[in-house]
C-alpha cells in the first residue's frame, strides 16, 4: 500500500513531478560541492542560461503533446538572431519585429505543410532544419553580425532588482503558456488531438488548425529565444543554435512529455530545462572536464528514461510480451 502511494507520488499524480525531485536532489548536491552555487547571482545566471532552451521548450511542449515534433527550432533561432542584429540599420524595434515575424512565418509554413500534405512532422521539420540554416547563410553570406548599439546588448544584461530581465521574461512566458495549456480550449484540444487523433476528428475538433497554431507557437518562441540570445551577445553568428533542437527535445522529454503525444505539462518542461541548466552550471563550477560532461549528460538522460518507465510499468503491462 505504502509502495503504491510512493509510486503515485513519484509519478506526478501527487503534487510533485519526478523531474522536480531530481532538480531538488542536484540542487542540494551542488550547493554542498560549491560555495558559489546557491548565491543569488549564480541562480540568476542559471535562469538566464536556461532561458534560451527554456523558451523554445515551452513551444516544443505544445507541439509534442500534439503528437508532432519540431527539429527546425535551432535554425529558426539562428535566423531570428541574425535578422534582429542585421536589420538594426532600420531601428532596433523593426529589427526585432522582423525577427519575431520570421519565426511566426516559418512556424506557419511547417504547420501548413504538416497539415495539408500529411507528411510526418519529423520529416517536414528535418527538411526545414537543413533548409532554414541555408537561408541564414544566404542572408548573412557566412558573416557574423555585430550590434553597434550597446543599448541592444545592455538589455540582455539588464536586471530588475536582483532579477535578470531575461530570466523574468522566461518565467512570465512559462506562466502564460502553463495557463494556455491548462485553461483554454486550444490547450485541451492539443491534448485531445495528440492522445487520439481519430477520436478528436470524430469529436469535430479541427486537428489541422490546432497543429498549425502549435507550430506557430514554437516558431515564435524559437525566434524570441534567438532575439534574446542575440541581446546577450550583441551579435549573431550564422551557426548559432546548432544542436539546440536536440537539447530542447531532451529537456521536454525529461519533463515527462510523451513523444507519442497526448501527455505532458509546462511545469514538467520547466523542471526538465532547469535540470539540464543546473547540471551544466554545477559541473562547470566543479570544473568537471568538458569531455566527461557529455558522457554524464547522456547517462543521466538514459537513467531518467529508465526510471520514468519503471514508474509507469503497470500501465504498459498488457502490451509487453
Amino acid at each position, binding site marked *: 500500500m505504502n509502495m503504491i502511494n510512493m509510486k503515485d507520488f513519484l509519478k506526478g499524480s501527487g503534487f510533485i513531478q519526478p523531474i522536480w525531485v531530481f532538480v531538488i536532489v542536484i540542487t542540494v548536491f551542488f550547493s554542498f560541492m560549491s560555495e558559489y552555487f546557491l548565491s543569488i547571482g549564480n541562480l540568476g545566471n542559471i535562469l538566464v542560461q536556461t532561458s534560451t532552451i527554456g523558451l523554445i521548450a515551452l513551444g516544443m511542449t505544445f507541439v509534442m503533446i500534439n503528437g508532432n515534433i519540431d527539429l527546425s527550432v535551432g535554425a529558426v533561432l539562428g535566423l531570428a538572431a541574425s535578422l534582429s542584429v542585421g536589420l538594426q540599420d532600420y531601428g532596433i524595434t523593426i529589427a526585432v519585429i522582423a525577427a519575431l515575424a520570421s519565426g511566426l512565418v516559418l512556424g506557419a509554413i511547417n504547420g501548413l505543410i504538416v497539415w495539408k500534405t500529411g507528411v510526418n512532422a519529423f520529416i517536414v521539420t528535418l527538411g526545414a532544419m537543413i533548409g532554414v540554416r541555408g537561408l541564414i547563410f544566404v542572408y548573412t553570406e557566412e*558573416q*557574423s553580425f555585430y550590434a553597434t548599439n550597446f543599448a541592444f546588448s545592455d538589455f540582455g544584461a539588464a536586471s530588475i532588482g536582483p532579477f535578470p530581465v531575461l530570466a523574468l521574461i522566461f518565467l512570465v512566458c512559462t506562466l502564460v503558456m502553463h495557463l494556455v495549456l491548462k485553461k483554454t480550449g486550444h490547450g485541451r484540444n492539443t491534448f485531445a488531438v495528440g492522445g487520439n487523433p481519430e477520436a478528436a476528428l470524430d469529436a469535430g475538433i479541427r486537428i489541422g488548425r490546432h497543429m498549425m497554431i502549435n507550430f506557430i507557437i514554437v516558431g515564435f518562441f524559437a525566434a524570441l529565444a534567438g532575439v534574446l540570445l542575440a541581446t*546577450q*551577445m*550583441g*551579435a549573431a*553568428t550564422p*551557426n548559432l543554435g546548432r544542436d539546440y533542437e536536440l537539447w530542447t527535445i531532451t529537456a521536454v522529454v525529461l519533463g515527462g512529455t510523451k513523444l507519442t503525444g497526448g501527455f505532458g505539462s509546462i511545469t514538467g518542461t520547466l523542471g526538465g530545462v532547469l535540470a539540464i541548466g543546473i547540471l551544466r552550471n554545477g559541473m562547470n*563550477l566543479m570544473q568537471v572536464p568538458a569531455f566527461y560532461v557529455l558522457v554524464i549528460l547522456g547517462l543521466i538522460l538514459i537513467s531518467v528514461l529508465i526510471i520514468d518507465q519503471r514508474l509507469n510499468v503497470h500501465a504498459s503491462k498488457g502490451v509487453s510480451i
Partner: protein
Amino acid sequence: MIYKTALATGVMIFSAGLAQAEESYRIGITQNNVGVDSYQTTYESAFEQAAAKHGNVDVIVLDAGGDVARQIGQMRNLIQQRVDAIIIWPTNGQAVIPAIRQAHNAGIPVVVTNSKIAEAGLDYIAAFSGPDNVQQGASSAEMMCEALNGEGQIVQIAGQPGYTTAMERSQGFEEKLAEACPGVKLLETQPADWNREKAQRVMENFLTKYDDIDGVYAGDDNMGVGALNAAKSAGRADEIVFIGATNFAVGYEAIERGEYYGSIYQSPVDDAEAALQTALDVLAGEEVPKMNFFETPKITANNLTEFDKPVF
C-alpha cells in the same frame, strides 16, 4: 580525525603563508572548442602546466565547446566567481564583446588569446596575446609566390566560415597575393571547417573541376594534408604546390618527405604560455602593450631542422 584536522589546518596556514609572501591569483580561462583539434588540446595542457609552474596561480579551466552562447554563460559564471582575471579564446570575434565588456565593467581584466576580437571590443580588453593571423596569411602568400615563380592557378581551402582566424588568414593571403604576385590566380575558395576529411572531399571536387591546378593554400596543415591525400589519390600531387598554416606533425612529416612545400610554425605551447604571462603581467600592474604577437615563422624544407616536430 584530529590528525586530519591538524593536517588540514597546517596546509591552510602553509598556503596562507605562501599567499602573503607572493600574491595569489585566480585566473579563469574559457576556451573555444577543446577536442576539435590537437592544437587546442595541446594548448590546454600547456596552459595547465604553465599555471602549475607558478605556485601562486589557481586556474579555472572551461571549454565552450564551440558554442558562443555557452561561452557567454561561462564568462558570466567567471564574473560571478570574482576571479582576478579572465582569459578568453573567443568562439567568435564579435559575439563575445558584450560579455567582455561586462567583465571590464565589473573590474576584471580580460586577456584575449589566440584569436582576435573585433575593433569595437578592444577598449574593454587588457591585452591580446596570440599569433598575427593576417601576417600568417601574407607569409603563406609569399611562399606560394616563391614556389610558383609568380605564375599559376591556385585554389584555397579555408577554415570554419565566420571564425576570425579563418577570415584573417584568408584576408592576409588574398591581399598579399594580389599585391605581390598578380601572376598567380586564385580560382576558387571553399571552406572545410578545419576538418581533414572535408578538405579531402573539397580537393577531390576541385581536381575534377579544374584540369590545371598549380597550388593549394589551406587554412591549416590538417586541411592541407587532406588536400595532399586527395591529389595523391588522383596522381596529381607532383604538379601541385601545397602550403598550409599552423604546422601539424603530419604537415611537418610531409615537408620532410618533400610532398608539401611549406607552412607556418605556430606552437600552442608558446601560445598558452604567452597568454598566461600576459595575464600575470596585467595583474602585476605592469604596462602591457595591447597587441602581443608571438613569433610564427615560415617553415619549409630549407629550415625544417631548426624546428622541433610539433607534438600534435
